[in-house]
């Protein structure tokens, strides 16, 4: 394991220890563990695809917009079409992600701008599709969420999904040609291109995965909130990026990975949950969150591989 991962892991361990020590019954209760997992699952799933996007040195600022849109689409389709909703939402996620990738590679627009623009479009679409109001889930559609809501002790279906995705994407990153191309493009796009790798295809696929994981995260969100909300995504945007970066993935690309994102998500979750479990006054929470975010990055980012930070 490289230095970055070790550092991120130790940050998680320290946070965990501090929280567990300061209020053992509360923090370690199976109820709270369940809450932690709930919290972590959404962020992690949303951040999975983004990790690849950031690994190639790009960024996806449309996740917020996509979450808004997809929760609405999922609830609407679940209410009317039943199980097809899963397929439709996931497919749509993949396609819209791909559209981001195409705008980026074929129109040659920096991802920061392209996806930021797309985010506005998605947010508008969410409002139009929903008629500008949150949409509740029909009670009869509730049972269709069983695959995500069934419980085994504190563990829920959505947590298992997160684990499963972690496994799959870990393999994709480390042991498939695509994963290797991602690492190579992130480090040196030109050299990779000259090695005969289809660079654009790799990039487009990264964005498609980002859309896909946003769609999956929306489904999990709906399984928890039981509604589709055309404004739900906005607060997630920067948080999801933070989850990736706090784990030690460099925004300049080439460094980090899915394991880092897992740790990053845990850090964000532990901080968010811990502030209440430990009982920090609300007026100080934002300040403390800001400080911890920075300190976490200071600790987790492995600077031996990146010469410059911007």
């Amino acid at each position, binding site marked *: 394991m490289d230095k970055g991962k070790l550092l991120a892991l130790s940050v998680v361990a320290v946070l965990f220890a501090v929280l567990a020590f300061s209020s053992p019954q509360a923090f370690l209760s199976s109820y709270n563990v369940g809450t932690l997992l709930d919290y972590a699952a959404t962020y992690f799933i949303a951040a999975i695809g983004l990790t690849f996007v950031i690994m190639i040195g790009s960024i996806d600022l449309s996740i917020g917009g996509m979450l808004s849109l997809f929760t609405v689409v999922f609830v609407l389709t679940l209410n009317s079409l039943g199980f097809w909703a899963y397929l439709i939402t996931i497919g749509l996620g993949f396609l819209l992600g791909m559209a981001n990738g195409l705008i980026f590679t074929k129109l040659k627009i920096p991802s920061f701008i392209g996806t930021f623009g797309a985010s506005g479009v998605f947010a508008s679409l969410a409002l139009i599709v929903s008629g500008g109001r949150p949409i509740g889930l029909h009670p009869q559609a509730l049972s269709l969420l069983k695959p995500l809501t069934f419980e085994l002790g504190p563990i829920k279906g959505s947590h298992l999904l997160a684990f499963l995705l972690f496994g799959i994407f870990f*393999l994709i990153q480390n*042991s*498939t*040609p695509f994963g*290797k*191309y991602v*690492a*190579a493009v992130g*480090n*040196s796009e*030109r*050299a*990779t*291109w*000259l*090695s*005969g*790798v*289809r*660079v654009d295809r790799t990039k487009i696929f990264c964005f498609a995965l980002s859309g896909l994981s946003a769609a999956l995260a929306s489904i999990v969100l709906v399984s928890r909130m039981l509604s589709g909300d055309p404004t739900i995504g906005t607060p997630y945007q920067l948080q999801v990026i933070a989850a990736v970066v706090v784990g030690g993935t460099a925004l300049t690309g*080439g*460094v980090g990975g899915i394991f880092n994102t897992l740790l990053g998500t845990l850090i964000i979750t532990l901080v968010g949950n811990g502030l209440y479990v430990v009982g920090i006054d609300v007026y100080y929470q934002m300040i403390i969150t800001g400080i911890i975010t920075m300190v976490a990055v200071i600790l987790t980012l492995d600077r031996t*591989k990146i010469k410059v930070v911007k």
Partner: protein
Amino acid sequence: MEPVLKMENISKAFPGVRALEKVSIEVFPNEIVGLVGENGAGKSTLMKILAGVYRADKGEIFLRGKKVEIKNPHDARALGIGMVFQEQAVLPNMRVYENLFLGREKIFARRGALDQKLMMQEATKILEEVGLELSPQVYVHELNFMERQMVEIARNIWLARQAQVDYPTIVLDEPTTVLEEEEIEKLFNKLRELKKRVSFIYISHRLKEVVELCDRVYVLKDGHNAGCFSREELSEELLRSRMVGRELHEEYYLASRQRKPAEKVVLELRNCTKKGAFYDISFSLHQGEILSLCGTVGSGKEELCRVLYGETKFDSGEIWIDGKRVSINSPAQAFALGVGYISEDRRNEGLVLHLPIFENITLPIIHRLVRGFLVRREEQFRLSQEMMNKLQIKALSPSVLCFNLSGGNQQKVVIAKWLLSQVKVLIMSHPTRGVDVGAKHEIYALIREMAENGMAMIIMGDSFEEDIGLANRIIVMKDGRVSGVLDATESKPAPSDLIQYVV
């Protein structure tokens, strides 16, 4: 006489590598000191310590008799040490004059504002002096590799002159690798003239130049001092043997292993034209043939190769591979058709520097190493290890990052990559650029071996000697057209035979 610069017992280790072990050098006034050694001998590291990029683990530096601490590049500059790095250090997004004075703008400040007119005047003067016919307003990204190098040299010469010290020291780390004969001559004259005021340290693998230019030469071997020779003693053979530590084959280019190419044509160009670059080029390349493309920069040979590996497109003409007409739009397509390319700029174009050796070597063929959905890592390792042994790449294991390899070893990794991918046609732009004499020899052997196995190659060599020595056939280009075709299989032409077509 007192030395201007003395580096004493300098040691430096990187994780897993002892780069320098008690190395000492001295530089006197009015002197051009040569520094030679195999790839990875530690030349660049030693100079980077002098320039403040790295800090020595042990050892002392004296400037004009006084011990100094060089903690960062800023200190080095203040002490009158300039460096032309092996890797280019000009900023493409800025104009030439901005690059020339970067970090020294204060000189042009008039009441808080920079006097742009003055900067421009001064820049024009400097450029004239090194013989670059450019407007200082041009953006560096519009310049070619060579022009950039000259800008960098010009910058350091100017800096040295600005320094308020006696005999500032300029380090030139392989400055001539990308220059043409004419420029090199200009540069040498400039250096000789300047040494009245400036001392130089000159690093090169072109021993001929070293012998011609330097007053004294240090040889480094595996991070140790391996001799120092004065002008009187100097000879290419001496340096070569000191660097490598063994006698080299009498027959440098291994001409005896040269074979007649097969009948089969693998690549054929028909009437290819790209306006402004080359016109009406036709030739065919046979299996196992080594074809040299000669000509000055601007003769169109580089552009022609670009077209072949898919970087750009031509305006008209046809490419045929294995008897089929093809179109090549990207390196990926080129590769699928069996065409590989080795760039002269290996740091930026040849390697993914921050990935390990094995990932680099297997990058183009990774999709062939898949079982189920997953890549077989052992296979990646095995193949890489094989190539590393074969090419004698100096590294602890295939998982070493390419970033940490010396220039020559990086070059070998690039070659290994294409060897492994078993392309039919390999285009090599300056394959031995920046490679030491020993490794050069190994690369020549490799080229022979690849030819014996049926690979066809297009080579743009570092010198006429290299082109002639390696090739079965030589195509000379001038102003975008073929000016001469020479056979070199039966008997080798002399360099003078070539020159008439080049100029």
